[in-house]
Structure formats: structure tokens, C-alpha cells
């Protein structure tokens, strides 16, 4: 194809947007609304995921050291723990610190009862392990259990298993919803575009009759679809970027006090914007080309 022909297709595609004013407007609106819903939903799901990540991060393995273990034994145990697979982090919690935490967690009224324990602390010294991946916590605990000088290993098996089950269900639902929504959006958008092109069946027929090749007819529609999608993505992207920025600035600190982190504005909003732009243009082009193809078989 000659360069000036490509230029002609580009211009023609743009002009067609104007020539089919209301139809273009309908298509762009469909793209805008659907991408808006998809965009907001992706942000929600990503924040939910982020929240579940942080909950899972809190899962830890407590290795209770035998009361009889000497300092040397403890050192040895620590280095052995460090060599275990999937261990990200080890912190040492002496029985005194443990008691401090316990007393603090029990509140004022019981404080005195436990203060008396300070003389004869019944707690163990503890190594707190974090797995490289929360899902691997059980494995780390099993490995740790085999080591010497250990009283017991605990990671709240019941609770953790349940937690992971719950997060898994939520994540799956999230993925299904996003995919379903994306699919619906694509279907609706391409259908709207198809309707606008059906109205131009005559136009395509005439192009064929004056000897336009199928490629020649398709190009302006390709560009038109691309523009419809890209223009339709503008508002959703602005809302995602601006809206999330606003929410983050106003609510992130307050939520942090409730132990819920929001996903930082960047790079997430950029990624979501790119997804929306890609969806818009792909669906625009697809809807446009697919419907033209039907009429090319004259």
C-alpha cells in the first residue's frame, strides 16, 4: 500500500467519526460506560487482594524453645532455622518480651495478676518465623518441628487454614467477576459498534461496486474503531487516575489506622489505565472489523 493511501485511510477514518456523529457518540458512550465500570471494579478487586495479602502476611510460625536449652543450643537452633527452605525472616522473642506482650494484650484489669508472674516467667523463649510466601507457612512449620531443642511449633493451623480458604474464595470470585465484566463489556461495545455499521451497509456495498478491494474498505473502519475505543477510554482513565488519587489522599491514612492498606496510587492506576485503553481500542477495532467483514461478502 502506498503511503498516501495510508494517510487517506487515517483521514477518512477520522472524518467518518464526524460524518456519523450520533452513531459515533453512541459507540463512544458505550465504551465509556463499560470501561468506567470495569475500571472501578478492577480498582476494588485490586484493593481487596491487597488487603488479603496483608492479612496473610501476618501469618507467622512460633517456634517455642525448650526451657532447658542453653544459649549455645539457642544459637545452633537459630542457624538451623535460618537454613530451612522458604524462611524469609526470623525474629527472637525472649520470654520477658513475650510476657510484656501478653500483659499488654490482656488489658488493665488483669494486669496485676500477671505482673506477679514476672518473678517466675512460665513462658518459653520463641523464634518467630515468616515464610517467603504465606501459603508455605505450614511447610515451614513442619520442617521446624523436626529440629532439636524445640518444645512445640505453632502457627494457628485451624485459623490459618480457614483464612487461606476464605481468601482463595474471594480471589476466585474477584477474578471471575472481572473476567465476566470484561467479557460483557466487550460484547456490549462491539454490538453497539456493529449496529452503527449495519446502518452503513449501503456505503460498503457502493465501495465494493466501484472496485475497492476489501483491504481498502476495511482500513478506515479499522482506524475508526481504534479511535472510538481510544476516545471512549479517556473519561474512564481520567476517573480512575483522578478518583483514586483523591480517595487515596483522603482515606489511606484513616484506613491504615484500621490496619487496612490501600494500594499506592502508582503504578497501579497507570497499569489499570493501560488495561482500559487496550480494552477500548481492541474492542473498538474488533467490533468494527468484525461487522465490516460480514458485509464484504457481497
Amino acid at each position, binding site marked *: 500500500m502506498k503511503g498516501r*493511501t495510508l494517510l487517506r485511510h487515517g483521514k477518512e477514518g477520522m472524518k467518518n467519526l464526524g460524518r456519523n456523529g450520533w452513531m459515533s457518540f453512541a459507540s463512544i458512550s458505550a465504551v465509556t460506560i463499560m470501561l468506567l465500570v470495569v475500571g472501578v471494579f478492577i480498582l476494588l478487586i485490586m484493593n481487596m487482594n491487597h488487603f488479603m495479602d496483608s492479612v496473610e502476611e501476618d501469618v507467622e510460625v512460633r517456634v517455642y524453645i525448650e526451657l532447658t536449652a542453653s544459649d549455645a543450643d539457642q544459637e545452633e537452633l537459630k542457624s538451623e532455622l535460618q537454613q530451612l527452605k522458604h524462611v524469609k525472616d526470623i525474629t527472637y522473642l525472649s520470654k520477658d518480651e513475650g510476657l510484656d506482650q501478653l500483659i499488654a494484650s490482656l488489658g488493665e484489669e488483669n494486669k496485676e495478676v500477671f505482673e506477679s508472674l514476672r518473678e517466675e516467667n512460665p513462658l518459653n523463649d520463641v523464634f518467630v518465623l515468616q515464610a517467603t510466601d504465606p501459603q508455605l507457612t505450614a511447610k515451614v512449620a513442619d520442617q521446624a518441628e523436626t529440629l532439636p531443642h524445640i518444645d512445640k511449633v505453632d502457627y494457628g493451623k485451624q485459623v490459618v487454614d480457614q483464612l487461606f480458604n476464605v481468601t482463595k474464595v474471594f480471589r476466585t470470585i474477584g477474578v471471575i467477576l472481572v473476567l465476566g465484566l470484561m467479557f460483557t463489556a466487550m460484547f456490549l461495545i462491539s454490538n453497539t459498534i456493529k449496529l452503527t455499521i449495519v446502518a452503513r451497509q449501503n456505503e460498503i*456495498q457502493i*465501495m465494493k461496486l466501484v*472496485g475497492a478491494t476489501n483491504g481498502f474498505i476495511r482500513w478506515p473502519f479499522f482506524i475508526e474503531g481504534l479511535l472510538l475505543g481510544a476516545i471512549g477510554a479517556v473519561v474512564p482513565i481520567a476517573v480512575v487516575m483522578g478518583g483514586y488519587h483523591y480517595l487515596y489522599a483522603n482515606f489511606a491514612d484513616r484506613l491504615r489506622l484500621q490496619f487496612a492498606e490501600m494500594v499506592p496510587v502508582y503504578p497501579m492506576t497507570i497499569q489499570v489505565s493501560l488495561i482500559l485503553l487496550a480494552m477500548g481500542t481492541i474492542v473498538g477495532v474488533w467490533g468494527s472489523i468484525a461487522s465490516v467483514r460480514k458485509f464484504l461478502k457481497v
Partner: protein
Amino acid sequence: MITIIEMMNVTKTYSNVVNALNNIDVIIEKGEFVYIVGPSGAGKSTFIKMIYREEKPTSGTILIHGSDITNLKENRVPYLRRKIGVVFQDFKLLPKLSVFENIAFALEVIEEPRDIIRKRVMEVLDVVNLKNKARFLPQELSGGEQQRVSIARAIVNDPRVVIADEPTGNLDPDTSWEVMATLEDINRHGTTILMATHNREIVNTVKKRVIAIESGRIVRDELRGGYGYER
């Protein structure tokens, strides 16, 4: 003489119905002006559509300017159509393009440079006497003017033959003559013209070769014939 259109033993059958066209043999030479007449449903449209390959014959052979288009591949069809100008009863102009753009479109398709397009379009607008309406939209023109635009589009890339499918079918008598005059003018400059028509007055007044089709057969082929079917 140079043969522009040659049909040999051409038969067209639509599914279930009887033959739309039956064993058609016809030769049309360069520079001829031919009327195709006959009652509705006799096969005129099928006859014409096969020439620019909107329909494919069921059997037989069609040669256009010596080349066999019977088994023309789908992707070669556009190149055939560039050698044939077609004019329709309903004009088939693009409603959102100006007169100029409508005509230029046929040249853009063959990737002519802009300056040549401009020059050629103005030339044919002169031929059909619409130079002053170049910027108008089709709906701003009268029926006769619209049909002349579609004729201009049909001849702009110098086709070997112009096919007109009832070009006066939607026009009142006066405008019909206008269009007829334009077609004759083009024919005088050497372009072959094939015109399917129901217009008895035109056929009887402007005497040309007449091919009459009835029930899918050529029943009459006279060099300076009349419309026939007189009541």
C-alpha cells in the same frame, strides 16, 4: 471491431426456481449502445449483474474485453469492476460525501494521486454539466442531477463499458431525457453503454440496438429496434 462483452451458453439458476437465464449467447462490441428490455423478472438484472460479477453464472463462459471472468477469483473482482462503470436506478451515492468526494472515491480506490483525482473529477463534472455543484451533498440535488453524479462516478476512471440498470426508473420524463443525453454524449466519445430500461419512449425515440429478454432467454436482438411490447 473489438469485443467488449461476450457471453457463451450462459445459464444462471437460483436455488429451487427455474432458470433465471437460459443459454444466453451475446456479443457486444466496443462503442455500442445497447438497450436491454423485457418484463420485470425476465432476467435483465441477472444479465447485468453477471457482467460486473455481482452474480456468477451457473454454467457457460463470460469474457470481458477478452479475459474470462467466469472463474475469476474473489480477490480479483475489484480489478474487474474498475473497468466497468455502473449506474443504478437509485443512484447509490454516499449520502455523507459531497458530489466531488463521491466521484473522487472511485479514483481513490485505484490510488491515483490527489492532483490527478482533482483534475479528472472536474473533467467529468464538466461532462455531466455539474461543475458548479461539486461541493453539494447528494440530498441537495434533484434526482436528475444525482443520477448525473452517479454517471460521472461511473466514467471517471475511463471504464471500457458503462452499465446502467434502469437509470431513468426513478426520474420524471424531463430529467430522464437529461440523463439520456448525458449517456449518449459519453457513448459518442467511445464508451460502450449497456442500459436496462422500461422506458418505452426513450427506446423508441433514440434508436439503438435492442436486446429483449423474456423468461431468461433472448427473444429479440435488433440493431435499430424499438421497445416492442406495445399495448
